[in-house]
């Protein structure tokens, strides 16, 4: 492997790490928003109870949105775990690159069959680490797709809540405001996850 290629591998692993950090930051913000949805849904349930039978449908949907917020947090937990595993694997790959570079420099200066064996063993190890990282990329992508599906469902719930709010009689204004906020927040999460699914991290090998 040439020095230029090593430098390029190192740079690409470094960029991978940066991309993972960005994905993680986005996930952290979604976790924060999921918590907010939970509180909002709880308030919406109380509001629906005060509105009585006219807001029964809204109450059911608010409860579903609360369940959604909990599912969303679970889903973000899965993503966070995968992110940590990706960080670990990229760190190992970065260390592999450095060690391989130094061992290769040693073999150039002092050709020895034993060193060649070690480099060959290390390269097999490096390939195994790269394969693990590649598998984690796919798992993370699948988990993001699942989270996206979940948020699509959340969007449907929020829109249905908007419709139900119209039947809230004297509470219709307050219910419309709450359901509008739900819709806005869920849309924000949807856009955030959509951008994550397009991350260049998933197009790397």
């Amino acid at each position, binding site marked *: 492997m040439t020095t230029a290629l090593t430098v390029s591998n190192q740079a690409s692993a470094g960029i991978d790490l940066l991309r993972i950090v960005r994905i993680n930051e986005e996930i952290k913000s979604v976790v924060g928003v999921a918590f907010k949805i939970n509180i909002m849904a709880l308030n919406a349930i109380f509001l629906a109870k005060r509105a009585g039978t006219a807001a029964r449908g809204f109450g059911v949907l608010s409860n579903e949105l609360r369940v959604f917020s909990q599912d969303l947090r679970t889903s973000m937990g899965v993503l966070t775990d995968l992110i940590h595993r990706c960080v670990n694997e990229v760190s190992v790959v970065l260390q592999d690159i450095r*060690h391989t570079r*130094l*061992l290769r*420099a*040693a073999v150039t*200066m*002092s050709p020895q069959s034993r060193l060649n064996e*070690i480099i060959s063993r290390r390269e097999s190890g490096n390939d195994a680490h790269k394969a693990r990282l590649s598998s984690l990329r796919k798992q993370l992508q699948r988990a993001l797709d699942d989270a996206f599906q979940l948020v699509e469902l959340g969007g449907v719930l929020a829109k249905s809540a908007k419709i139900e709010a119209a039947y809230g009689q004297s509470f219709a204004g307050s219910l419309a405001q709450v359901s509008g906020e739900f819709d806005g927040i869920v849309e924000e999460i949807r856009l955030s996850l959509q951008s994550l699914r397009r991350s260049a991290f998933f197009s790397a090998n």
Partner: protein
Amino acid sequence: MKTTSTIFQDGDHKWVAIVRDPARPNHLIDTNEYLITHGGKGLLLDPGGAEVFPAVFSALSSEFDPTALSAVFASHQDPDICSSLALWLEFNPSMRCYVSWLWSSFIPHFGGTAETFVGIPDEGMEISLNGLSLQAIPAHYLHSSGNFHLYDPQAKLFFSGDVGAALLPPTQNGLFVENFDTHIRHAEAFHRRWMGSNEAKRRWCERVAQMNIDMLCPQHGAIYRGADVHRFINWFDGLQVGIAGG
């Protein structure tokens, strides 16, 4: 590539100094590594930083079969001392690392497993290299809080880690100290700043002055030999240390 010089030989008992790498980037401090061989086995003293591994490895290989390295001795925990450990272990996973007990859970961050490390107790210990008895001599706080030097009573050679180190200009890169007064100017600021305790220095000077030493071999700079060994101990004894400039 670094150069090697045999500084002691008696049959198969050898000390080889691995020094001066012309290809070393200037931002890395220059280091000396020492290889002790006896009965076909080797002990590498302060194996060096990861970035100088290729140069040290190739120089060592030119003198000795690296698969016969049974251990490394790390005077303390600094990266220029032993951050190459993981690379040496790739070559020889059963190799041991002798280091102060204080650092035996810190240095594994550079590499190695629980089996790799042999913690040296504060009072020092005997290290056997295929029947050759070597002594780990306490040098705590000079500069590290868990610090050892290595004495070979048979060869009368003393590895002194950072004590005796000098940051030499490129024009003065000889293996041995030739003019003590000129040389020591390049050691003074280093010792004032890096050595943290006058009390520890006093005890070290008293202990080492009683030893029979032909050469004092530091990790940076040139080797003191003959009368320069005691000249250095006396100079160090009189130096006030633990002082930051400015």
